[in-house]
């Protein structure tokens, strides 16, 4: 999966659907820096190495071509799926994060792809990253607290 991919290549390969109104034939860019897909952000590990760390419960799994769901669809909204060539990409979760935003740590030796029905697909260049959620400030309480943004 290291050649240039289009959205339709990716959906054919993985069996994951994206909405029909997205342009299926535009090639999917591969980014080696920070990028966001809706309410998720992919951050190079070096930027958050002091905040996000593996813990005693952290387990790593091989990301299969059929994908790992990062935010489950049962939770409402559309799922963000992570896909890569089998055996080349590890997804480790849960991790320690005092901000409570990180979903897990991604270690990939090939280009991995993040696929979402509404946002399409985006490529992640080989490397180590933290994938985290977006938050907002809660209002109407006696004290400030935050909750997650869900798109």
């Amino acid at each position: 999966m290291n050649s240039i991919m289009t959205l339709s290549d990716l959906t054919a390969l993985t069996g994951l659907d994206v909405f029909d109104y997205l342009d299926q034939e535009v090639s999917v860019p591969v980014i080696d820096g920070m990028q966001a897909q809706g309410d998720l952000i992919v951050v190079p590990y070096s930027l958050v190495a002091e905040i996000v760390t593996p813990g005693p419960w952290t387990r790593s799994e091989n990301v299969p071509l059929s994908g790992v769901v990062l935010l489950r669809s049962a939770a409402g909204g559309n799922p963000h799926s992570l896909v890569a060539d089998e055996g080349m990409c590890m997804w480790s979760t849960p991790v320690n994060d005092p901000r409570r935003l990180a979903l897990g740590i991604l270690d990939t030796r090939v280009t991995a792809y993040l696929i979402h029905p509404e946002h399409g697909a985006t490529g992640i260049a080989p490397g180590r990253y933290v994938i985290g959620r977006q938050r907002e400030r809660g209002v109407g309480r006696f004290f400030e607290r935050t909750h997650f943004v869900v798109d």
Partner: protein
Amino acid sequence: MSTAPLRPVAARRATFTDNNDHSAECMFGVGAVRDAWLGHGLRAWPSDRTTAESAVETLYRRSGFREPEFVWVPSPPAGSDLIAVEGLATTLSFAGDGVACVSSRIATMLSESRRRMDTLIARGRSDWPNERRAIETARTQSPDDSARVGISPNAIIRAAVWDSLRTSLFDGVAAAIRTLMPAVVGGVTWYGQQEAHRVAFYDTYRRFGLARFRSDDVELLDLHTAVTGATGWWWAFDNVCVMAERPTALHTEPIPGRVHNERRLHHPDAPALEFEDGHLLFVHHGTIVPDWVVLEPTVERIARERNVEVRRCAIERIGWDTYIDEAGLALIDRADDPGNVGHTLQLYVISDGWGRSDHILLAVNGSPERDGRRRRYGIYVPTRISSALDAAAWTYGINGTDYARLVRRT
């Protein structure tokens, strides 16, 4: 695609940790049992009066009382009105024979039974160093993921059944119904269908053969199960039992970010909860709102509304961009949106007229909608933040300098 072959169900064992292949199957079953109970808790359908009355009569007899006269009312608020008008609760008191009344006898009987069952369950507890932390971890991931990392069945069932149903029904739907009634009704209020967590929890242990309860506890569990599956709220008095019908409409949506099928009341343009007698609630993503928020939200009404949660719901109904244009909010800062070429991040201050203010970041979605337009959305950020870039960075938990390096946003 799963490569693990399905194992025969008969091979199920009492603990999930000794064989990882079985655990996923058992845990799948836990979710199914929970969802069946959730269905009872959210049911909008006339009560099964025969089943409900027969179970309650048995509870009366077991408490040493004669069968009561049943009075059916169309809703819980109608029940509390009846109790007040008839003075049914005036015979209760904490002094003297308060504890001897039928409702406290039933409550004691059921809670003692639960305590005995809890003791049995605790006996099979795993040697997890810290059960509470295990439950917290189990809350954030699916039952099979928890089973796979060796979290005990107790922690998984607590998170996936008890906590999930309690959140959706007891703390969710029942708390909303409470707002239709006076704070104090008198006597013990039983939530019927919305007490499902109390029976579903022990039912799960029983179904999967994880605990063997005493026969009298099994019988009480069956009675409580029957009431929960058959009807809505009820109040037991010595001679009379007031039974409320279930709602005629009850609409929910999944609670975002939760993994155990927790749900909250919601309907975009109709009451989320309605009883036969016209008692109803408009609920927007779990927040109870006045009817105008759903039926006819306007900028003028929003300006007059004091409750920020209600204001927020109304603004979301008309859309942040419309609201900001029409209400003339003050722009504090603006910046190019990194990774989203051609679009800007805008930070606004919104004052509610009562000396309180909020900061709202207005951003443009990175991907187009079906109609080709891009949705604008508002996100509340802490008021200490006065730069649009810092505000966007804060939502992802990083600083503004790092966020400026964002390469792509979709």
